[in-house]
């Protein structure tokens, strides 16, 4: 594979506390050094003005294979991830059938290898068939390479099952990723319950439905000392609960999604099912609290919850259309727009939540440019301006809530294990129009 030199980029690696302009040298697929390089190179990239980061990690995606390949496959999802700057993703097990056996987990690796885009880590189901009744064969799933456990798409509803899952997984030190939602309280809902849902006459999903399960899970984590990760937090109350749990030393981590930072429930005024997502878009007050949680470290991870749905499904009536939006190919610019541009986070902190933090939650040896690490690298152009056009996405689906937005920043080069797997087009065509 030889030597790759990424010259004179701003190298930001939160795992080592590095933020400086330097050469990054990769040899035979691993990071050799961060520092000046005069030796020969098989590939040189001029990264002046760009950010050189550890390959980004999205620990919450839904690839619909097996079962719903018309919406996404592991190959198309991984291609979308790569184009978004992600070298590793963790895919949720709510496929049909669910990823609840060793073979199913191995199938994910097999398909990802065949596709050859980014790394795809399977998350195993907590319960058999995600039915919430008995634990899946977690040991076998770990053998098959499952990096964590989740019944996402649904919460682990039973407190007893959740407690046992947190206890049982202690022997593997694998996290339980829970989707916090008390289904009793959200049944029939299509959006956040509040002023907007009242005005639109749409059935609501109250914030308290999320917060009750967040607090239950925190209490169970304290009780079991299990490894708890709370998915896609969306309410101010949830952030406060996690903040105080962390203060008390309880082992819990949490993630938020870019759409919960960029949009509010007022988006539903269009009645467009593209804005129907679970947890639902909340209020300005919740958005501010999520950002505050990111700033003070209460929230560890930003993840997309990339949830593709074939176009026909999102043409259904709001109450019949499925929940979910895609996010892999817009995550980076939306994070820049909502967090970097207003000055909430600096690049070091943003990249931390997209690299080493999710790597730690998943217990995978990624998200670092430490010498000797496999060279997963994302070169980010932070300035390039472009207009989001879902028709150009690698994803099979188009349910993107940001179509038509003009944004800044994108992945320019993406390396997986030292191999250049993705390169952005020379210049986004939309940019030329903007210059005029």
């Amino acid at each position: 594979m030889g030597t790759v030199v990424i010259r004179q980029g701003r190298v930001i690696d939160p795992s080592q506390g590095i933020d400086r302009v330097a050469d990054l040298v990769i040899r035979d697929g691993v990071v050799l050094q961060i520092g000046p390089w005069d030796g020969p190179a098989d590939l040189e990239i001029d990264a002046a003005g760009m950010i050189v980061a550890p390959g980004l990690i999205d620990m919450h995606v839904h690839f619909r294979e097996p079962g719903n390949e018309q919406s996404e496959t592991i190959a198309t999802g991984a291609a979308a991830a790569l184009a978004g700057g992600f070298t590793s993703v963790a895919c949720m097990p709510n496929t049909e059938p669910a990823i609840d056996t060793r073979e199913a987990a191995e199938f994910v690796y097999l398909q990802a290898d065949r596709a050859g885009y980014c790394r795809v880590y399977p998350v195993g189901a907590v319960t058999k068939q995600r039915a919430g009744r008995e634990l899946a064969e977690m040991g076998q799933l770990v053998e098959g390479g499952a990096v964590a456990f989740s019944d996402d798409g649904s919460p682990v509803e039973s407190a007893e099952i959740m407690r046992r899952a947190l206890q049982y997984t202690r022997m593997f030190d694998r996290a339980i990723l829970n989707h916090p939602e008390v289904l009793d309280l959200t049944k029939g809902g299509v959006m956040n319950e509040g002023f907007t849902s009242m005005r639109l006459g749409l059935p609501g999903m109250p914030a308290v439905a999320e917060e009750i399960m967040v607090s239950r899970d925190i209490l169970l984590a304290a009780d079991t000392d299990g490894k708890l990760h709370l998915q896609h937090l969306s309410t101010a109350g949830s952030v406060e609960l996690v903040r105080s749990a962390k203060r008390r030393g309880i082992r819990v981590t949490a993630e938020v999604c870019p759409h919960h930072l960029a949009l509010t429930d007022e988006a539903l005024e269009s009645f467009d099912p593209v804005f129907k997502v679970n947890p639902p878009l909340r209020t300005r007050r919740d958005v501010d609290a999520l950002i505050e949680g990111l700033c003070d470290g209460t929230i560890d991870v930003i993840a997309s919850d990339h949830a593709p749905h074939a176009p026909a499904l999102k043409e259904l009536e709001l109450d019949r259309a499925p929940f979910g939006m895609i996010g892999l190919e817009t995550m980076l610019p939306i994070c820049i727009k909502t967090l970097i541009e207003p000055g909430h986070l600096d690049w070091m902190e943003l990249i931390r939540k997209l690299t080493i933090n999710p790597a730690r939650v998943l217990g995978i040896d990624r998200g670092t440019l430490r010498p000797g690490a496999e060279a997963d690298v994302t070169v980010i152009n932070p300035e390039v301006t472009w207009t989001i056009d879902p028709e150009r996405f690698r994803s099979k689906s188009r349910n993107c809530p940001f179509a038509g937005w003009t944004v800044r920043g994108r992945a320019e080069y993406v390396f997986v294990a030292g191999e250049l797997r993705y390169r952005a087009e020379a210049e986004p065509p939309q940019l030329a129009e903007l210059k005029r």
Partner: protein
Amino acid sequence: MATEVSGPAKSTELWTRRHLLDLEHLEPWEIEAILDTASAFREVSERSRKKVPALQGKVVVNLFFEPSTRTRTSFSLAAKRLSADTVDFTVSSSSMAKGETFIDTAKNIEAMGVDIMVVRHQTPGTPHILARKLQCSVINAGDGGHEHPTQALLDVFTIREVKGRIRGLTVGLIGDIAHSRVARSNIWALKKLGAHVIVCGPPTLIPRSITKLDVEIAYSLDEILPRCDVLNVLRIQFERQRGGLFPSIQEYFALYGVTEERLRRAKDDVLLLAPGPINRGIELTPGVADGEHSAVLRQVTNGLAVRMAVLYLVSGGQPRSAAE
């Protein structure tokens, strides 16, 4: 055969809307323009010859995804009185071809040369989506728990006709506010025209955030009765509820049922409205529904005039020239 529009139509402000999707986004003068136009058509309906040629050659389709004999018949008759050709489609989700969306269904019908589509659907926002996807005019004839503009317009029209004004009146909306499109549309119209609105029902049927619309919340009907000039008694939307929102129909009736006895606490000239098919014996007694305060039948008559006005205006007619 020109009929002058009664009331203060503003000649400087011309009607430009091609759709009537909700009342939330109408300006007060637009609501008044509809009411004034309806007044003109109301006179037409009292003539022996009830037809005007305003929509001659136009096609009006009633596309109902949720059954409703009353609203559909009212729209049909309104369109016929304007000399339009009318077609009714009642579509149930089971009768839609597999994989066909409501958008496909509407586009197929539109392709037959439709000028105005009157849409009723159980899901909020469906008429709004169709207005974006179709070329023809779209009128919302009720979308889930969201809005039912023509019902509220006919309610307000009836109040104005009986009371002579809207501004300064106190109107009580009684019952299932949470799930009622009629409540929402009434609140918008009444507030825009200057009425004071009280919503009254059990807390499980009244979203707290509704106070942001500058309406008063009350849980005791007996307490508010003496203050109300108008009572609009809403139907319990059993089909839109999750159930368990009140303990029993008997208890609901005991607390909120409008009975002759209870009405004695009300003003002597209280006006009683009840939209659509009421659940007799739940929201109000038969005696009250047919009693001296009730405007239930007048509402039906006025519904026709209001729907004529709406059809006429979205097709490009102007308030002043109505009924010519």
